[in-house]
């Protein structure tokens, strides 16, 4: 187990390193001069040179890369070109929108999908099953941003239950802030719920056919107890895996949904930072998103290895 842990940790670090290098190289070739963008039409060459040197853009690339990584390791970030504040501070403020949004979406999709999946499994081949599987197919086919647009049209514009867009901020009170996240969270949750319902149904069906369930039946345990006591517990493993992987998807998926709802989250930040060539912000946010994916994958691998020793060798 220890050897496995060490090996996986090494892979984790190597992946992060390769990713950071890839990010840096892509930003190196990104067209558009941040200094020119700040100074605009009337900028003169000497003014531009002065600003570039102020921003540290005139130093050689390897030096800037090392300064970036060194800074991150030391726990300090650069200063955003556009906002003139430390990048970590900016990211922190945006996470206060994106993380709750993804978390609510995760809870919503679980609450929606698990009972539906179990219903489908226990009603296999009957109307309930068809209904749930149909919902799942439709849910996977609907683009989340279209669902978002339609829900604005229905719930915000026509019924006026929710705000159409924007985020009042947590200082406006938790109620108002959460209220503004309901429609975005639903838009994010729907496709995830559709996938999760399928996974739940499949793993419950598989467990229902297992030996110990037959034994339990033979012992005369009630169907309800078998289902909730044995089957669900065992089916939880693949479901948790999917949930873990989905969290990373949700954070990334929020980019599009935040654009629809004009939410000041991480997705908007990266979008805005790319167009304003605020590369100091772009590289940190992208690396953060990559780190989330890599670490979640790592955690899932470790969890699997703890449950099933064979996985240690296979990985």
């Amino acid at each position: 187990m220890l050897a496995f842990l060490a090996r996986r940790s090494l892979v984790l670090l190597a992946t992060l390193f390769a990713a950071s290098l890839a990010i840096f190289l892509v930003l190196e070739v990104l067209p558009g001069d941040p200094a020119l963008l700040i100074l605009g039409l009337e900028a003169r060459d000497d003014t531009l040179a002065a600003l570039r040197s102020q921003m540290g853009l005139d130093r050689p690339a390897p030096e800037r890369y090392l300064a970036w990584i060194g800074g991150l390791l030391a726990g300090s970030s650069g200063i955003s070109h556009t906002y003139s504040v430390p990048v970590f501070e900016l990211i922190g403020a945006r996470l206060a929108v994106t993380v709750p949004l993804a978390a609510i979406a995760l809870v919503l999709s679980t609450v929606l999908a698990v009972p539906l999946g179990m219903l489908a499994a226990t009603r296999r081949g009957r109307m309930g099953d068809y209904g749930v599987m149909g919902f799942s197919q439709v849910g996977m086919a609907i683009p989340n941003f279209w669902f978002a647009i339609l829900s604005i049209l229905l719930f915000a514009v026509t019924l006026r239950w929710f705000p159409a867009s924007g985020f009042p901020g947590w200082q406006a009170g938790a109620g108002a802030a959460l209220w503004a996240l309901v429609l975005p969270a639903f838009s994010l949750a729907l496709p995830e719920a559709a996938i999760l319902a399928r996974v739940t149904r499949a793993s419950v069906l598989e467990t229902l056919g297992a030996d110990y369930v037959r034994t339990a039946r033979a012992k005369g345990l009630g169907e309800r107890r078998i289902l909730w006591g044995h089957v669900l517990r065992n089916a939880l493993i693949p479901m948790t895996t999917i949930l873990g992987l989905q969290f990373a998807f949700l954070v990334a998926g929020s980019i599009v949904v935040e654009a629809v709802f004009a939410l000041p989250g991480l997705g908007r930040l990266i979008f805005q930072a790319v167009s304003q060539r605020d590369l100091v912000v772009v590289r940190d946010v992208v690396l953060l998103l990559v780190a989330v994916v890599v670490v979640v994958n790592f955690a899932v691998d470790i969890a699997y290895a703890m449950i099933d020793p064979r996985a240690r060798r296979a990985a």
Partner: protein
Amino acid sequence: MSRLLHAITLSVAVSFAAFAVAPAQAKDSLAIGFTLEPPHLDPTAGAAAAIDEIVYANLFEGLTRIDQNGVVQPQLATSWDISGDGLTYTFHLKDGVTFHDGTAFDASDVVFSLDRARADDSVNAQKPLFAAIDKVVAVDPKTVRIALSRPEGALLFNLGWGDAVIVAPESATTNKTDPVGTGPFRFVHWAKGDRVELEAVSKDQPIQKVAFRFIPDPSAQVAALKAGDIDAVANLNAPEAVLAFQADANFEVAIGSTEGETILAMNNARAPLNDIRVRRAISHAIDRQAIIEGAMFGFGTPIGTHFAPHSPAYVDLVATYPHDPAKAMALLKEAGAENLKLTLKLPPPAYARRGGEVVAAQLKEAGIDVEIIPVEWAQWLEQVFRGTDYDLTIVSHTEPMDIGIYARDKYYFNYDSPELKAVMEKLNATSDPDARTKLLGEAQEIVTHDAVAVYMFQLARLGVWRKGLKGMWHNAPVQATDITGVRWE
């Protein structure tokens, strides 16, 4: 009829926030919605209009200022004398002015600010404004003398720009995040991504607290106005939504003018656009009214040259190249430029992206095949503006009185006219208003005659605010939201 119908549907549609009870509006506070958040708050270190929209006249002041009609007014300088040769300006400064941090304002601050803006390591975005200045000297604490190396007819106007405001040496380096000026409002707080708050220095100011709220999405701005989250939007970027506000008794709509000449610029150096017949053909192929209707929902004034129609010096040349696809084709044939294929690079604003789609369709009717290439501002500046790597582009030139750009070498039009240069040189040496107007008229006729660009329309400023709010600027001669004269009634 259909317009009315749209207006009704829209007003139903956007007034959704019924549950969000508007906070009781005290008579001395104000919240204004903006599309763009500024990168920082130092107008002397960036070109972003969003900076000036907040700080100009409210927080920072210059020697002169520009009022809502585009006229130069005294500000930190109460009066000035100009020498007979036009080379020396002597400014008499206002008494008893202090910066928000309590330090006193005097002639040394003026020398510091102007020298800082002109310095070699200056990061001022409008350095050419100060190009004619040779020396700035403090004669005594209340008098400043500016010596010019050549006559500059526009000096007083230039000193009224946001980029020429007076800052204090003690706070100049921290103005980006904690601006300190001499204006009637001082900086309070900036919640990034959400708002900047200012408060009045004096208790006599009718508005005591102002919040500048950043709402990037026009449809969200409309919702925030209706819900009472904000009181005003100085320039609503959704012309389609303005119709609904016009029908709403709770709001006032002001359709004002801007300095934004929206043009279809052509690369005059690139074949076949270097042929005047091709440029004229393109001018004939464009239907201005259809572009204004299609892209701006009818808001905007057709123009025929690079000059604001509300300016006294404007010459109406709209009829020079009437919409005539057949004539356009004939001209192209004459120039041997049939089956023309061109690229059209479009920056992000809606006037460009939407307008570009209509332009492409119109040019297609004249047999010109246009490929649309959307670019971000960073790329537009680097490729189109600096690199002049483009055939066609659409952009709004929002600087006031900027026809002089056509006389510049290596400007992105790649237009070179000795005739125009001579006129502009004469203009620079002229201070008599009538003579200036005449020269400006000549310049307009030259650029239109040469069809340097297709002059499409003047951007409208679509202001919407709650009834009872008085003193908001209708027009935008400079990028500013001057609230020093705003009050509730």
